Structure formats: structure tokens, C-alpha cells
């Protein structure tokens, strides 16, 4: 047990690298928030655009969504970071990770929002329009509030899963938790920083997972 603690819970090593991990913690938080905001906003815009039912536009949206659902996030990040520079497009690891994860979240969010809008019965549109609400007003005040409510549980779970992908940024040198833990590990040749990194992720994501559980029960839809 003493040896185990020496290896995985080495206080000296941990104390030394804790500030680095903390630094990484904030980078992870920033990256995650940026992904959530950009991803969900883009997804909503795409779903709204789709509701106008312009054929060519819808085809484009479906193609975008399908590609981003089929290609692994890490492959996307690596294409953005390692492949694009060969044609002169350069971006930092942070931007590549942010862009890849936001696009993926956007595609999932679009699908979820769109399915939610379809789930609102047609009679709701008719009732709203019959009282003189315009298309956009009916969308804004009648259809979207119901669609959002239906979509919140799946959207929350998907968002959590994708924000955990911020750890993939370590592969393209984003100074987030995993990257910091990994480099501390290779400097010290002791896995304690990895333990610390793991704890940092748990501190960040356990509450998020619980929040997801709460949302699932809270929004269980009753009609």
C-alpha cells in the first residue's frame, strides 16, 4: 500500500505540479464553455434554417450533420491541426479542438432540435397562426418552447459527452488538464500527476453528470 501511494499519490510530485493542473483546469473550462455556446447556438440556427424547408439548403445541412456524426472527433481535430497547414491554413490547437467539437455538437444539436420541432403537433402551428401570430412569432413563442423542452434531456447528455472530448485537445498540445498531467508525468516519471488530472476531471464532470441525471427526471415530459 505504501508503494502504491508512493507511486500514484506522491504528495511531493502532486504539490509540485498542482498549479500546472489548475492552469489546465481553467483551460478545460474555457474550452468546454466555448464549445457548448458555439455548438448549441449553431445547432439551433441550423435547425431553424431547416424549418424553412428550402431543398438545397436542407441537403447541405443534412450533409454537414451526417459527416460530423460519422467522422471521429480526434480525426477531425487532427485534420484541422495537421492537414490544413499543408494548404496554408494554420490554427492553434485550441482553435482546432474548439472548431471540431463545436461543429460536432452543432450537428447533434441540429438533429435534436429538428426532431423536437417535428414532434410539436401541427395543430399548435395552426392554433398560433389562427390568432394572427406570424411564422416567426409562432416559432418563437409556441413551437420552440415546446421543442426545447422535449430536446433538453437528449441535448444535455450529448453536450456532456462532447465536452468531455476537450481532453482530445491534449493530442494537439492544448494546455488543458490532460496535457498538463501528461507532460508533468513525463517530466517526473511518476503517474501522480495523472491521478491529479483524473481527480480534476471528476471534480469538473461528476456534478455535470449529476446535473444530466437531474435534467432527465425534471423534464420527463408529461402531457
Amino acid at each position, binding site marked *: 500500500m505504501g508503494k*502504491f501511494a508512493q*507511486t*500514484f499519490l506522491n504528495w511531493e510530485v502532486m504539490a509540485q505540479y498542482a498549479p500546472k493542473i489548475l492552469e489546465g483546469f481553467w483551460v478545460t473550462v474555457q474550452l468546454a464553455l466555448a464549445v457548448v455556446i458555439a455548438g448549441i447556438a449553431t445547432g439551433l440556427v441550423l435547425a431553424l434554417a431547416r424549418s424553412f424547408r428550402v431543398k438545397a439548403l436542407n441537403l447541405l445541412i443534412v450533409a454537414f*450533420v*451526417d*459527416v460530423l*456524426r*460519422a*467522422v*471521429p*472527433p*480526434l*480525426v*477531425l481535430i*487532427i*485534420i484541422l491541426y*495537421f*492537414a*490544413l497547414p*499543408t*494548404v496554408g491554413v494554420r490554427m492553434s490547437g485550441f482553435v482546432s479542438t474548439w472548431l471540431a467539437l463545436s461543429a460536432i455538437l452543432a450537428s447533434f444539436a441540429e*438533429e*435534436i432540435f429538428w*426532431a*423536437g420541432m*417535428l*414532434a410539436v403537433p401541427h395543430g399548435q402551428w395552426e392554433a398560433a397562426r389562427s390568432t394572427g401570430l406570424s411564422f416567426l412569432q409562432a416559432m418563437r413563442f409556441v413551437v420552440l418552447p415546446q421543442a426545447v423542452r*422535449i430536446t433538453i434531456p437528449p441535448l444535455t447528455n450529448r453536450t*456532456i*459527452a462532447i465536452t*468531455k*472530448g*476537450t*481532453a*482530445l485537445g*491534449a*493530442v494537439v498540445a492544448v494546455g488543458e*488538464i*490532460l496535457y498538463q498531467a*501528461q507532460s508533468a*508525468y513525463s517530466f517526473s516519471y*511518476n*503517474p501522480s500527476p*495523472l*491521478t491529479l*488530472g*483524473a481527480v480534476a*476531471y*471528476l471534480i469538473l*464532470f*461528476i456534478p*455535470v*453528470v*449529476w446535473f444530466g*441525471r437531474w435534467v432527465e427526471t425534471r423534464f420527463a*415530459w408529461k402531457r
Partner: protein
Amino acid sequence: METLITAFFNLGILRETAPYLWAGFKMSALLTLVVVPLGIAGGLAVALIARTAFRPLRWLVVFYVDFFRAFPPLVLLMFIAFGLPFTGLDLPAFVSVALAFFLNTSSYYGEIFRAGIESIPRGQFEAARSTGLGAAQTMAYVIVPQATRNVIPDLISNTLEVVKLTSIASVVALPELLYAARQAQSITYNATPIIAAGIIYLVCLWPLVRLLSRFEHRQIALH
């Protein structure tokens, strides 16, 4: 356009690196064939244990599920691949990856099966028990088959995510598709292999994405 083709869709490079990519593809396929059934079996076990009458065991399972759902899979993988050797347990890369995937995916599959089992009305249990089936028989012959059918879209969706996730094995030098593509890129100084890997994922997984999108629309619409 010319530059784009030379940089991303270079047939000469593709021909040269195809054997690498093919070997990587086979490894990815093998990994998928190992981790998906393991994860499903683990998930089913998790869901069944979550229903035992013995409370501490139930809590343990909830803890297990939340713990591994909060952990980014890449963090888990690195912890296992880089940390475990310090305990004297030096697993081959493939085994480390399989272990990490088992812990991660069995939590997700477990949640899906749990929801499926909860969706079965009490009357089904009572009917089965009233005909003299034991608790285990009731589960095996009556509840689990129905539960599985109810959650097929979720199972497929999660499996899609697992297949995509196998790409993170490249980080611990398991020679799967993405790893092979990156090796090929560093040898040829050309991004074509990475783009090819992306396209291979797209071609293999796109049918699954289409299928799911159809399921999801129907599912939410029936909500």
C-alpha cells in the same frame, strides 16, 4: 484546386501508403469487434446488478456508472496505459485499450439497458412470475428481450460512438487506422493518408448515421 488535390487527394501517396492504412483499418475493425460485445455484455451486467435487492451493491453500480461517465475516455486510457505499468502490470497496448473501453462503454450501455428494463410495465414481471418462471428466468426470457428491443436505437447510437472512439487508441500507439494514417503522413510529409482515414470512417459509418437519424425522428415524433 491543384494544390488542394496534391495536398489532400494525392493518388500517388495514397497508393504508396495504402498497405499501412489497410493494416490500420483491420486493427480498428478487430478492436471494434472486441470492445463492442464486451461493452454490451458489461452494460447488461451493470443494468441487472442495478436491480438487485441488495442496496450497497446498487449504490456501488450507480457510483461505477457515474464515475466512468464523468471520466473522459482518453484520460482513462492514458491512466491505464501509463499508470498501470508502475504497479508492475505491464499490459500490451491492445489489452489496455480494451480495458479502458470496457470500463467506459459498459457504463453507457448499462444506462441504456437500465432505461430499457424500466420501460417494461410491472405486469410483465407479474405475468411471468405467475406462470412459475423464476426471477432470473423472467429477466432472461421476458424482460431483457423486450427491453433490448425498446432501446435498439440507443444501442446503435452508442455503438456508433464506440466505433468512432476507437480512434483514441492511436494516442497509446496502438496501430489502428488513425495511428497508421499519422505514421503515413509523417513519412510522406503529405496529409492524404489522414484525409483518407477520415473518408474511410465516413464511408463505413455513414449508413449507420442515416439509419439512426431515421430512428431518432420517429422516436421523438412518437414521444
